[in-house]
């Protein structure tokens, strides 16, 4: 269970999260939606302790990670896998070394096993035979998928996906959606996904949370969200220019 309690976060004068509260259930796929620049990535980084809130608490299985020292935080982080919005691959390492990185760090595996797991994870994101390429030789979508393979390499309990399907073609999008669903099912993992792709969101999510104005303004099942009478949600789902969400 992930619990965010009264989270405030500002960057200089820019208030991004404003007393945000959210409970994310274990073993489900929760999708966070919200406008671009609204603070979704910032929210995700709070869950894994990359950003510390100015005020508030982040509980992972009842442990407040905002108060932990480095060592205890690392223990908790071993439960996590994370895909960054821009993939954040190590550009001095090959694709194989990237995916193998968490394995080498935390799993006692032989070289043979590592190669096997890397190939298997890459295959699951639709990539084969690119182990020896450098990240700079890949397309944006390929980089994202390598990042995905790296995020799930250690079979984490909690996986955070920052826009896993943005920039992928429709077929690949569907494949990645399926991968997220499978990951959740096979590992009984908790998945937190940020996405702008409404079709995918309603297909894969168990719960949807809408971030607006620094807080979660609506949280529920896809059906509940679809039926919501909140004008912000209605406007967001219909993609209309008219409504409470101002373009500028």
């Amino acid at each position, binding site marked *: 269970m992930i619990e965010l309690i009264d989270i405030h976060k500002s960057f200089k004068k820019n208030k991004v999260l404003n007393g945000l509260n959210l409970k994310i259930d274990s073993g489900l796929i929760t999708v966070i939606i919200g406008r671009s620049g609204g603070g979704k990535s910032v929210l995700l*980084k709070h869950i*894994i302790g*990359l950003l510390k809130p100015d005020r508030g608490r982040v509980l992972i299985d009842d442990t407040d990670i905002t108060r932990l020292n*480095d060592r205890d935080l*690392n*223990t908790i*982080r*071993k439960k*996590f896998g*994370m895909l*960054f919005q*821009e993939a*954040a*691959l*190590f*550009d*001095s390492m090959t694709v194989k070394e990237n995916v193998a*990185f*968490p394995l080498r*760090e*935390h799993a006692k595996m032989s070289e043979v096993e590592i190669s096997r797991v890397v190939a298997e994870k890459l295959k699951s994101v639709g990539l084969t035979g690119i182990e020896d390429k450098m990240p700079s030789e890949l397309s944006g979508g390929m980089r994202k998928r390598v990042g995905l393979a790296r995020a799930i390499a250690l079979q984490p309990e909690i996986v955070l996906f920052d826009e896993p399907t943005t920039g992928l073609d429709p077929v690949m999008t569907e494949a990645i959606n399926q991968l997220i669903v499978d990951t959740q099912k096979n590992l009984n993992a908790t998945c937190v996904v940020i996405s702008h792709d409404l079709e995918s969101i309603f297909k894969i999510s168990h719960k949807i949370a809408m971030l607006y104005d620094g807080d979660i303004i609506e949280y529920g099942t896809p059906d509940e969200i679809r039926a919501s009478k909140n004008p912000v949600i209605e406007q967001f789902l219909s993609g209309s220019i008219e409504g409470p969400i101002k373009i500028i």
Partner: protein
Amino acid sequence: MNRAAVAIDQLGRTVLEYVEEMGKIALLFLSVLRWMFQPPLKSHLIFKQMEFVGNKSIFVVVLTGAFTGMVMALQGYYGFKMFSAESMVGSVVALGMTRELGPVLTSLMVTARAGSAMAAELGTMRVTEQIDALSVMAANPVKHLIVPRVIAGVLMLPLLTVVSDFMGILGGYFVGVHLLHINSGIFVKNITTIVDLDDLYNGLVKAAVFGLILSLIGCYKGFNTRGGAEGVGKATTEAVVLSSITILISDYFLTAIMF
């Protein structure tokens, strides 16, 4: 009056900023020490950095060392000729190189080559979230990125300095003996009687300290980069300037302590 006050104010601020920055770098140093002795040692990362700092700097170090020795011989010759003491040229070159110019010039060259690259590399990793990715995978960035670079800096700078010292003396010998026709036996004998092994050792201690300074500052600037490509450029420039200044300042104090 007013303008003078502004200038003094500005100077005070700059000094304060410098001191504050040194404090933060000292803290980073403590954290490097802590992680350095925390197994496992990432030896492959250390060797990679040693190769980068050492091997790839040899050419510039050979060149600067040789020409520095040569020009010292030339200048020394004109000076000593006034007292007909041309034979002293060899010992002046050797003393100057081992105590001072070898370590300082080598460090400045390596700062420009490797210190700047450290800042640029870590800076790019910071702005593309690669450092965050390390943290997320429960891999400590200080241990993975900074410890190997600092170890490489401290170990390789003395070695490069030996090369520089040697090339400087060789260059001085070439100019003194072959171009200015100082007797070769006297040239060498003067070196061996006047220059102590201690001169060499102390120079190497300096070099190790400078290696620490340039790698630590390069990493610090890169690690704390903010804001895109522009930020990386800024971090790189600042790393070179701050390292060079700090090397020259600490050179004075090291000299005062050791000699």
